[in-house]
């Protein structure tokens, strides 16, 4: 079974430029997450989708960040414009929605450097 796939793996952009990250969750996983991880810290949730609905986006900085999951499968996270402080790893994860003790599976992350 394929895991969570993310692209690009690495991205370097200049500040004020836009950037987008793509995620393909594990097949059959209805819940999709985007996390932000700064160096030396644990991941922090940005947004959680149940199918195509964003059920928790309280931690997403909506002035410059946006996300979508149009068909309830793939998702895109966008930053526009990027700032120096956005340099971090952006992790996508997925899990099944039903059942107890659902395990969240992570992709390898998209590493963003803003210069």
């Amino acid at each position, binding site marked *: 079974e394929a895991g969570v796939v993310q692209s690009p793996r690495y991205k370097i952009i200049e500040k004020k430029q836009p950037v987008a990250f793509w995620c393909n969750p594990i097949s059959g996983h209805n819940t999709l997450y985007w996390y932000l991880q700064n160096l030396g810290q644990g991941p922090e949730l940005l947004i959680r989708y149940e199918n195509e609905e964003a059920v928790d986006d309280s931690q997403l900085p909506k002035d410059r960040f946006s996300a979508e999951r149009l068909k309830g499968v793939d998702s895109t996270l966008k930053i526009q414009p990027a700032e120096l402080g956005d340099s971090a790893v952006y992790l996508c994860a997925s899990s099944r929605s039903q059942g107890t*003790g659902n395990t969240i599976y992570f992709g390898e992350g998209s590493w963003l450097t803003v210069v």
Partner: protein
Amino acid sequence: LAKTTQPISMDSYEGQEVNITCSHNNIATNDYITWYQQFPSQGPRFIIQGYKTKVTNEVASLFIPADRKSSTLSLPRVSLSDTAVYYCLVGASNNAGNMLTFGGGTRLMVKP
């Protein structure tokens, strides 16, 4: 969401058993305890999950006392490749609580 407290770092030697304890004093009835492992340049990887007593898989064991206010991840006979950050998380089992909050994790360094 229950907050977790775990040691910032630990050192061990190859072949030793490593026990990492996590405190979660305000764990809720529906919360499960989950441990993740993260290597540099990779996303977190699920290790083990439990609700109470003891859980064992091919990688680790998880010990949870009756009051569930703490848990201990046990890694038998660690090797250099077990050097990583280990995160303890608690989260609810229902749909609304399917979000897990990460703390700072425990950085395990295995030495030769």
